């Protein structure tokens, strides 16, 4: 079984940037980039199948300044190989264009059985790529998976649903997008994995390698266009206590609440 995992690289929440600055790549260092948590869930889903059925797992990353960092981490977690796809002409703010790049990557890879990806592409604030990709590939799919088990001829999968969980069965060749759940909680990288990742050769494909061009996957091809991006100004003033001994902090909070006439307790 050959599994492809598409991973998304995002700016860490630890980075002290505010609002629109997150979208300014000149302000972002390579060290600030991490794998999107839901992409890690997807990697875990693929690796669980590798553990049980000997599947091979290929991680593919299109996004980010230096997708290589995310890909080395994916290998360190246990993926067999990785492919970096990068091109200055790509415009991935439009989920349809990102889905197109993924389709071309899969065509170049050729043979595959399962596609995993995280349910949320945080870097473009998009939740559409999985559904679009499945539709383009005409693959049976489940989005927001929370748990899965192998059954004869496929998988039984539970996915998030308002007010509960829905269970469906899908064939072996399918697309699964993963949400955050205990089942898909990602494993840590191992020392052996880190060493393997350091040595691994990661091929790099450009737009031309995939037979794409700016007129297909560049900004001019986008149907979802940004009109404006601005900081959200929160009118209320937050009172955040970030120093002092725990007891002082609590006293500080309680006296401020009293001053503001906020009643704790009913």
């Amino acid at each position: 079984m050959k599994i492809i995992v598409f991973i998304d690289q995002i700016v860490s929440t630890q980075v002290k940037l505010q609002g629109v600055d997150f979208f300014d790549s000149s302000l972002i260092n390579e060290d600030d980039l991490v794998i999107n948590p839901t992409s890690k869930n997807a990697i875990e889903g693929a690796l669980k199948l590798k553990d049980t059925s000997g599947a091979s797992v290929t991680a593919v990353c299109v996004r980010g300044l230096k997708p290589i960092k995310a890909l080395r981490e994916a290998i360190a977690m246990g993926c067999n190989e990785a492919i970096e796809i990068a091109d200055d002409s790509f415009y991935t703010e439009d989920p349809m264009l990102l889905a197109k790049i993924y389709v071309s990557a899969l065509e170049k890879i050729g043979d595959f059985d399962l596609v995993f990806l995280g349910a949320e592409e945080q870097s473009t604030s998009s939740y559409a790529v999985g559904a679009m990709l499945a539709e383009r590939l005409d693959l049976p799919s489940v989005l927001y998976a929370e748990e899965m088990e192998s059954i004869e001829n496929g998988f039984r999968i539970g996915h998030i649903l308002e007010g509960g969980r829905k269970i469906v069965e899908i064939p072996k060749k399918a697309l699964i997008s993963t949400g955050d759940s205990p089942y898909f909680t990602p494993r840590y990288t191992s020392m052996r994995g880190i060493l393997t990742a350091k040595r691994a050769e990661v091929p790099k494909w450009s737009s031309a390698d995939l037979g794409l061009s700016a007129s297909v996957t560049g900004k001019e091809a986008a149907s979802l266009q940004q009109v404006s991006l601005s900081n959200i100004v929160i009118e209320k003033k937050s009172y955040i206590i970030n120093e002092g001994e725990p007891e002082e902090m609590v006293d500080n909070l309680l006296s401020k609440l009293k001053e503001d006439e906020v009643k704790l307790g009913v």
Partner: protein
Amino acid sequence: MNILVFGQIRDNSVEENLLGILNKLSEVFGDSEISAALLTNQVNNDWIESLGKHGVNRVYTVETPELEVYLSRPYVKAMLEIIKKAEPTLVLAAGTVYGEDLIPRLAIHHGVSCAQRFVDISRDGDDVLFHTPVRDDQAMKITKIVGNIKFATSRTGAFFINENPSGQSPEVEKLDVSFDSNDMIVKHVEIKKAERTVNLKDAKLIVAGGRGVGGKENFQIIKDLATTLGGEIGATRACTDLHWIEETYEIGQTGQSVSPDVYIAAGISGAPQHLSGVKAKTLIAINNDEGAPIFNFADYGIVGDLHVILPILKSKIKS
């Protein structure tokens, strides 16, 4: 503007988030024709009346056993038929799990992209503008879709429902769509409804825990503080999934919606999926990660370990 909405039904009623969208549409596109697509195994006239009351002029129905439960392929197929018939210029759905599955697929079939999780919609000449908060709600991105037909889903909880709707009964048009085995390739097994034995809707004070609580035993700290304050407890989906706490206490998009006077969020990072279910007058956050998005929404906060802070808070309040 000719608008088509996905007439999602949940718990035998029209999805509340869809009613919210309809209210917003009447405000922004008052002069437009609004149709709804109703896909089901059995049409209920109450749904049609409810859609009409909230401003829908025409309802297209496809009624067949294959549409009993949402599944991507048959629903996409039926929707494509309705779109062909209705010729909308704007297609909208509530941003539920089903809506977010359906709309991108329909968009792809029309060769365009879609906007998602908008909290406001406006018009600018012939353009429709979608206002979407991004990056943990720190920035507002406004987008438009270039094309003759536009697709989008709202963020759940974004719009108020008109409590006194006065629309007329809509016209109903029935469509026949047939399905083959390839359409039904994903098999529905069951829906496991979360037990909702505790109603948090009217709670005045809630102490809620997230992943940062760290374990089932640790939830006692949350319970203790809630008891001391005379409030209720709540949790994120991660905690109920991990069985740290009963699923009835789940708050958020897929759990209960709450609107207490005070909401104490302990060890909660502040993901939109959780916060979309919280409308509190005062939000107090306790989290040891100063970079956690929850602090952007909190009125008050302590950057510290909840396992240390909450017991101190409890004992100080007691005394």
